[in-house]
């Protein structure tokens, strides 16, 4: 056995497939010029012609209440403070936060709903979302989402990676792997986080991690402030030329290392250094909003000037979409209203309502809504019964995985429709259930992928975003 064989790493040994595929993916990301590689093959490529090229996913972390925003239940008013019937709950498990409660009194929403014209016979939406309601003819509201998890962490992991266990690749990294980027100067997958008004849960970076995929596919977090990407700027006294020379040398050494051990992560590293170098130019241009006109800024609301706000992130999301970034993930935190919901939710909706509507409209007039899927979702829903004391004007709501509402727009999704129904208590789904896997499969379909064929060999089996589940929900496609 010669030296070379001895030096093969364990990683190489177990991840033979990964080296090839990772290398190919990298080529397309970098452009062959940088690595001196000859035939550049795009990443896996789409299986058929897509209706969408990118995704903007607004995740409302903490889980907004479907009962107070989307799932209109006027009939509940006459059950105020009555016990949730066992025929509805059917012994379903509850979280530790309310399982000890003596009573489960029904808490109808205190908010008024209006019925807005859409492309069917209208959609009822809460007074808390007047701007979002103006998207009624563009949005597809799904009232019959359900999930398997009942606590934030596993539910978030499920929504973002397709399974409750940690360690899988996130949706955005799958897109980076499958499509590469339409802009060689920016990462394919960008994440932005805004802090909400209410109770905040931990938000782990693995929600945008790449799991078993080569690590250049992980999401890149854009921060608020003057240093959007940490350690991107050259330190004092280092010029861009110096940086280039340094990189050339390091890349040489890394490439030698790669030729020795074929570890795809070495190439990931080269690609990330190069990406960072190009981002030194592209990121400042991206985050500088001085070229936006007043009318546009006005649309997003005055918060747009506050860096790190949801509104500011929405505007950045549009700028990223415009620049070809594939997967733009916004987190807005603070929706976990176990008590004092009617007051706290107002703080949340006022932070997101105007900006998210502006984002959709801004994309639309630029022709970008046609091929961008907008997804607005929390990780689960909230309970119809009050957690803690119910009064006429106040209540809390516990986690509820059996039904909740999400909305989509653009990218080949049928506009102006409502899909799925829940029972009178917004507790169980009565029509057209949609699982998280179904949602993923449907979005992948719009992006040009058969979800059963977008896979990656890992630990002895083919891994997929939808694992072994998921059906494309055809009725919500255009």
């Amino acid at each position: 056995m010669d030296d070379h064989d001895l030096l093969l790493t364990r990683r190489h040994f177990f991840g033979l497939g990964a080296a090839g595929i990772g290398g190919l993916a990298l080529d397309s990301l970098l452009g062959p010029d940088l690595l001196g590689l000859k035939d550049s093959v795009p990443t896996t490529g789409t299986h058929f012609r897509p209706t969408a090229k990118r995704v903007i996913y607004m995740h409302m972390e903490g889980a907004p209440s479907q009962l107070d925003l989307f799932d209109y239940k006027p009939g509940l008013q006459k059950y105020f403070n009555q016990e949730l019937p066992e025929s509805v709950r059917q012994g379903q498990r509850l979280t530790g936060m309310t399982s000890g409660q003596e009573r489960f009194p029904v808490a109808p929403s205190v908010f008024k709903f209006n019925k807005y014209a859409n492309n069917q016979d209208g959609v009822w939406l809460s007074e808390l979302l007047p701007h979002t309601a103006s998207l009624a003819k563009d949005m597809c509201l799904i009232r019959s989402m359900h999930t398997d998890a009942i606590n934030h962490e596993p539910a978030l992991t499920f929504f973002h990676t397709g399974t409750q266990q940690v360690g899988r690749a996130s949706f955005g990294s799958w897109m980076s792997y499958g499509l590469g980027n339409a802009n060689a100067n920016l990462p394919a997958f960008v994440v932005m986080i805004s802090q909400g008004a209410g109770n905040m849960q931990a938000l782990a970076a693995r929600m945008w991690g790449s799991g078993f995929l080569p690590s250049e596919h992980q999401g890149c977090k854009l921060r608020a402030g003057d240093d959007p990407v940490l350690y991107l700027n050259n330190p004092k006294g280092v010029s861009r030329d110096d940086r280039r020379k340094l990189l050339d040398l390091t890349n040489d050494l890394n490439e030698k290392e790669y030729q020795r051990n074929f570890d795809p992560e070495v190439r990931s590293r080269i690609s990330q250094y190069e990406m960072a170098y190009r981002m030194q130019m592209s990121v400042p241009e991206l985050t500088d909003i001085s070229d936006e006109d007043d009318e546009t800024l006005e649309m997003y609301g005055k918060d747009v000037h506050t860096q790190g706000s949801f509104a500011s992130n929405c505007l950045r999301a549009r700028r990223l979409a415009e620049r070809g970034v594939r997967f733009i993930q916004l987190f807005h935190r603070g929706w976990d209203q176990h008590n004092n919901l009617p007051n706290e939710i107002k703080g949340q909706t006022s932070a997101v309502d105007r900006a998210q509507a502006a984002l959709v409209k801004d994309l639309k007039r630029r022709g970008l809504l046609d091929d961008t899927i907008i997804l607005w979702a929390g990780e689960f829903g909230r309970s119809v019964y009050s957690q803690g004391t119910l009064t006429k004007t106040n209540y809390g709501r516990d986690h509820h995985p059996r039904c909740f509402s999400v909305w989509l727009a653009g990218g080949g999704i049928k506009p102006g429709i409502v899909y799925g129904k829940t029972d009178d208590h917004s507790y169980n789904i009565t029509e057209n259930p949609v699982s998280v896997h179904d949602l993923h499969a449907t979005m992948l379909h719009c992006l040009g992928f058969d979800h059963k064929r977008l896979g990656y060999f890992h630990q002895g089996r083919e891994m997929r975003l939808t694992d072994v589940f998921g059906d494309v929900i055809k009725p919500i496609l255009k």
Partner: protein
Amino acid sequence: MSLLLELFGRLHPMLLHLPIGMLCALGIYEFRAWRKGDPPAPRFWVLLAAGCAAFTAGSGWQLHQEPGYVENFALEWHERLGIATGIGAILCAMLYSNVTRYRKMLLLSVATMLGAGHFGGTMTHGEDFIFEPLQKLAANDATQEPASRVSYERDIAPVLKAKCSKCHSASKQKGGLRLDTPEWIRKGGEDDGPAVNVGHPDGHPILERILLDLEDEDHMPPEGKRQLTQQESDLITEWLQLGAPFGPPLAAADAAAIQRLRDSLVHVQTISAESNELYIDFAATATDINNQIVTELLMPIKDNIVELSLARAIQIDDGIMPLIAQMPRLEILSLVNTSITAASEAALKEIATVHLFGTAIQPEQPSDALATEILDEGEIKLANTECPVTGEMIDPKYTIVYQGEEIQFCCPNCPKTFWEDPEKYLGAK
């Protein structure tokens, strides 16, 4: 009676194997006997063979009386030769006493029977059934050099003409469907609607029918009719997976030109794994490009471009139009925030989708802050949430009905108090 006849007809596919076997066996027996100078086969066997042949021919003729058979060459000759075989076999039995004539007649009957069998096979299995494996061999040789992709004109239309036009063309439109021109194919039939799902890899009614089991009554072509060969159905499948393109096949774009684009940080992507059509995006270098750079880069691959984004390229103006005009397949074009002017407006009308926000053609578009129509307003009408007597939170256990309305109280005592002077407590509420 007619039912029995029909049954008799349906026995044909089973019966037909008897005379084939018997006549062949007799033929071999007589050939050997003739060479050796032996006497002919026992009369019983000749009579039996003649009976079976006549019976089979009769049942075949009866089967043909049923509706649904398309007259074609194979059917016509299968019938003629089949009847001839029946008659020939009976003649054999009649001529048995004259050995030479009997043997000549037998030779003739075996010959007609082989012909009838061949055309029968063609009807059920298709023309190329036997030689298909050989054709495949030849095809493999030919595809060493990958042929260009399936073309409607070259590959598909001839198959549809040969195998479907009997029932789906100008002369006959079974199921309201014609398959003889692209327009009719797109229009489709009565039950399935458009026969192909243009632009999509799946959801093609045609394909679903072809792939059904032969026994399924919706299978196309119907059972008993000339079927598609494996090769033909593979061709059709491949064509449909490409999204049923009717135009000529598109050759892959020049690799060197694509390399040049990638070197210039331009995004180049085929719109799907199966396609040579391209989506081109100048997002990375939008602010640096101009008409000349773009024209030089794209000219060599202009035929392949279906989607093109020049958004935010402020130096791009009407000078780009000569290039755009030479892109026959361009469907989606973004000129958002470019310097294009109204002078190009007419030319841009040729393209299915053009985005012009932020240009002189479409300088502004109101954002319609709250433009949705409200159809109905909900109201919040809790029965009563506080006890009308004490003002405490109600408990649904203590509910009474007063003047048709439910009123709830906080404890068992309050209803009594309430009944003493309802008006007073209602007023207070």
